[in-house]
């Protein structure tokens, strides 16, 4: 199974996310991560789906089926060159003796501390899935108290916008 990032421009209307999620479920496609948010144009939203796919045929079928949804404006598979980010908030066990050590590690990953208490420190970090996994591995010896991670968002590189081109 390989992961593919699909950027889906959709009409900003109620029920669109349900249609996309339902389509994945009905056709037996796997979603690894999902993120939805506004775009540069109010009437559109962008859904970023990381799809887990067995072969190219399945990926092609996902894209074609997504394109059939009336409220889907455009579907683009973002290649490996795209800028890809996930965000993680992680609460790590920390006291006076370990706190600065943790902050050192976190700053190596360009993360930052966003909350601190006598027994814990909460870290915010963004990056690719791999980078966040690496950070987590460094932090786990201290004890992970709580973790939350966003779905992946991504944009293609260069000046072009996905919504500029004639859709579909």
């Amino acid at each position, binding site marked *: 199974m390989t992961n593919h990032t699909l950027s889906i421009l959709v*009409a900003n209307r109620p029920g669109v996310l349900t249609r996309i999620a339902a389509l994945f479920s009905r056709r037996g496609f796997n979603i690894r991560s999902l993120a939805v948010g506004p775009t540069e144009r109010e009437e559109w939203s962008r859904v970023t789906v990381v799809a887990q796919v067995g072969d190219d045929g399945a990926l*092609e079928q996902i894209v*074609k089926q997504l394109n059939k949804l*009336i409220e889907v404006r*455009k579907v683009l598979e973002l290649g490996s060159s795209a800028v890809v980010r996930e965000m993680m908030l992680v609460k790590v066990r920390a006291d006076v003796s370990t706190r600065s050590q943790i902050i050192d590690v976190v700053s190596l990953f360009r993360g930052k501390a966003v909350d601190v208490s006598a027994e814990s420190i909460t870290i915010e970090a963004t990056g690719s899935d791999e980078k966040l996994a690496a950070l987590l591995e460094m932090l786990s010896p201290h004890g992970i108290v709580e973790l939350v991670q966003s779905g992946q968002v991504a944009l293609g590189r260069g000046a072009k916008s996905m919504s500029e081109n004639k*859709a579909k």
Partner: protein
Amino acid sequence: MAQTDGQVMTGAQALVESLERMGVDVAFGIPGGAILPAYDPLFDSSIRHILVRHEQGAGHAAEGYAMSSGRVGVCIATSGPGATNLVTPIANAYMDSTPLVAITGQVNSHAIGTDAFQEADIRGITMPITKHSYLVKDVEGIPLAVKEAFHLAATGRPGPVLVDIAKDALVKTAPFVWPEEMDLPGYRPTLKPHARQVRAAAKMIAESKRPVLYVGGGVTLAKAAPELAELVERTRIPVVTTLMARGQLPDSHELNMGMPGMHGTVAAVGALQKADLLIALGTRFDDRVTGKLDSFAPHAKVIHADVDPAEIGKNKAVDIPIVGDVKETLKQLNKAMEDLDAPDAEAWRRQLGIMKARYQPRWEEAPDGRLSPQEVIQRIGQLSPEDSIYVSGVGQHQMWAAHFLPHERPNSWLNSGGAGTMGFCVPATMGAKVANPDSTVWGIDGDGCFQMTNQELVTCAINNIPIKIAIINNNVLGMVRQWQSLFYEGRYSNTDLKTESLPDFPKLAEAMGCVGLRATNEVEMDAAIQQALEINDRPVVVEFVVHKDAMVWPMVPAGVSNDEIRVARDMAPEWEEEEL
């Protein structure tokens, strides 16, 4: 500008006005609480509303209307159970790409989500079985939703569209505004095929030695029979017509090899298996046609033309994809073939011709002088007028009807293909008759199917819709029983309907205001068919009592290669001596 533009009206009035503007002349439905406001203006409208006995009947009737007329069928139901009763016909329309608009009432917008009386999230329920759906909560949104729904249902790959309208939106008032534009930025079906792809296809056709035109329901939907006929005459390529495409090329045409698939003819199945080129037109390589996919048409290159790009390459890898309306594709293909030679396929035609002559679908005489179901169906076709329309239920009688009725005209054969919906026949026959009041419309039904939706015969009797229903009564759920005979050592678990004792079908028919007839032998059979054909002031139901052990042959057992086709139990056709 129409008189009603800008006029303040209720949402209900706006709905009916919008339906009238879309040219709706008939709707099938049942009122209820949430949709009740709409039924008041409907009372005075130009739309003929046919009050059915069950919402499933409304849905299938709308399908029958749509399939036989090429127009959008309309059904109406109230919220909750009314709407959920439409689920089966909506799913059926989705599988067979039938243009259908289903209008349902919904509870008041502020009550949505509170588990209000007769509330069901019908939009959510039908999301995977509709082409698109609307939940309208504002009176102002009604005309646009209706306009878009009809456009979506009828264009591109047709299909069912649901318009769910909250009751308060039907009750509130607003000035009527008919939208000039639709708001469907993501919807642009490709209708015009790519010229380069068509040229490449033409070249591949010209170079082929064993080509087959594999014709599906898309040709029916696109009304492309004349263009298909032209291509066949021009290229002399043998044709197979799927269950959804029977009649697109007359069965009497020498190059029509019949229906492919699990119960296809040997010539049609063999044509696909031995072909070096499939020209697939408006068809989707359904598992009932392909059998085991990896051994389907193993020697063939594939040209696949379909209006839905997602069908291309979904099941079978394709060499030349052509996205577009199949009628337009055929036109361009005909033009492209003008400059090219027809394929050199004389030997292939001869080979298939031999297979066709040798392995015509046939049946064994019924024991002890009883009627054979196949014989009954064939006889109905022989005695009925040429312009008759035939509708079937689902099961053995459907397959026999596909083989033994005269499929000579396009768009005169209606059945439930993809979904296989038992109970389709009676209401769909009603819908077809409403759309074609001057044609003889026969429903060929089974005793199992008939008992699912026969109450619509009351609707037919009351509304002067004189359909003819033939019940092929073999007392059992025949197709399931056939599988039990073949694959479950004859253990007939729950397939005996005991319809030899109950119900008394002619009496049941009479009770519903129809003429009820029964035939148990050949003499009675002809007399009953003749009598049924002469009655045009009432619906007629003829029960044909047939023997229960008749099986549908040929057959490719589920999950195996089409090469394993059997022409009768334990009997394979002889391929080898015919190898090229």
